[in-house]
């Protein structure tokens, strides 16, 4: 392609390719191979005696513990109770978070009041407040749901506010120029436009809810994945403990996949 004249003679050289790279290609097979490899190595390390099972139970014993949980019917009991707590806590927390986030995004007063409050309260560790929470709300379902809801509330507020702030102003101006009532502007322009940000917030809040189910079930719970984990930890039953962790991870993966599917449907327009 390139012709360079050197000493009167024309020399032709091919231009070397220097682009490419810097793009993540989907390679699902790699994930599975790496995952299987780690598990195999782990099992090997224990079978060969390199790692003391006192410190780390083997994958086989974790699977055994999971199997025991399943056949005894306890798994379903723990799961159903925890899912009810996670579900109601998440719904309440993200519902309120959406309302507060939108009000803060829409009104200057809401923002002026809300911003410092959110910044001040969000980083408070909920577990440190458990004694107070118990004093206020007792030890029934309420404090458990409130623990999860309060953890979900703040990331939702922040994501919603960011979503509302990112709504293109010209869309609002367009809606106003057609005399759309304020309520319609919120429902038809603002919320759909903020939806990607809100859904991204849901990813965080769903993980938060899973994290907090353990904290929530510190409060007088006999059943639930969190209670199961805590008991296993207290009794140093490391296979049960890891089985509980696996269940939480699977729940996390499941919720993540659910949200991805939801995004695919709701954000098809992007």
């Amino acid at each position: 392609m390139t012709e360079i004249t050197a000493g009167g003679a024309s020399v032709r050289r091919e231009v070397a390719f220097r682009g490419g790279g810097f793009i993540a290609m989907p390679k699902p097979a790699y994930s599975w191979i790496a995952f299987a490899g780690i598990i195999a190595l782990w099992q090997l390390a224990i079978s060969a005696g390199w790692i003391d099972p006192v410190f780390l139970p083997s994958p086989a014993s974790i699977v055994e513990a999971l199997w025991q949980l399943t056949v005894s019917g306890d798994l379903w009991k723990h799961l159903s109770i925890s899912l009810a707590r996670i579900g109601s806590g998440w719904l309440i927390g993200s519902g309120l978070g959406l309302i507060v986030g939108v009000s803060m995004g829409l009104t200057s007063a809401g923002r002026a009041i809300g911003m410092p409050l959110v910044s001040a309260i969000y980083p408070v560790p909920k577990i440190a407040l458990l004694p107070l929470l118990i004093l206020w709300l007792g030890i029934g379902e309420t404090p458990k749901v409130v623990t999860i809801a309060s953890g979900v509330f703040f990331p939702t507020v922040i994501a919603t506010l960011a979503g509302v702030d990112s709504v293109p102003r010209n869309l609002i101006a367009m809606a106003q120029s057609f005399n759309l009532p304020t309520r319609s502007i919120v429902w038809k322009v603002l919320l759909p436009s903020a939806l990607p940000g809100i859904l991204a917030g849901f990813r965080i809040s769903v993980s938060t809810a899973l994290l907090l189910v353990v904290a929530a079930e510190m409060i007088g719970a006999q059943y639930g994945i969190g209670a199961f984990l805590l008991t296993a930890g207290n009794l140093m039953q490391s296979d049960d403990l890891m089985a509980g962790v696996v269940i939480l991870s699977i729940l996390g993966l499941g919720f993540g996949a659910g949200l991805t599917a939801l995004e695919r449907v709701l954000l098809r327009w992007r």
Partner: protein
Amino acid sequence: MDVIIDVKRHSYDDLLVLEDIKIQVREGEIVAVIGPSGCGKSTLLGIAGGILKPSEGKVFLEGNAPPDCLNPLTFIFQDFALLPWRTVEQNVGLPLEHHKLSTSDRQARIADALQRTGLSDFAKALPKQLSGGMRQRVGIARALVVKPAVLLMDEPLSALDAQTRDLLMEDFLDLLLHERMAGIYITHNFQEALRLADRVVVLSRRPGRIKEVLTIPIPQLERTNKAALAPLAELGDRLWSLIRDEASVADREVIHD
């Protein structure tokens, strides 16, 4: 229906943007507004359309809007301002949703607007599936659906490539000449101004003041004739000389945002 703009002054905080702008646009008349970047053209249009409040001044409508007009002052936006999650027909139908209309009237208006902009086959498409030119057609259809009396256009073609722009400009002209609408057309582009406008308002650099108003004495339909070429070229030179000095100074200003 006429629109009368009488802005004494408009400023953003300390930044004076517009001063002493008086323009009257009559029914059926198209006024192009041209001026260097940042001189306040979009601000002026926003004020005219009632979505910006002037620091001092008023805008009036005079006369009667057509009987089926739902939104006398209607915008067409430079960046189209389409809702990306709505299909073409849903976007076009948006301005009708809060009006009490019979289903048949609603559908007829949408169908008519789509048909006049050549979008009938794209009713179910999402904006992301359309080219820039088609998207602006959706913006135009959305404006037509309310049967406006005054069309406010802020550089509606500047986001498009040159060929699309030329094609769409003819369609625009067609629409504007067939309705008895008043039109304000903001542009950077002399060709557009000379092709579409009955009068051209030239603004000075910021703070924008009316520097000159040029009347183009040739009817739009005759402007493609050979005979019109020379006088139009002359008007073009005139416009360019009016704006050149302003533009070169404006270009060197520090932007105050």
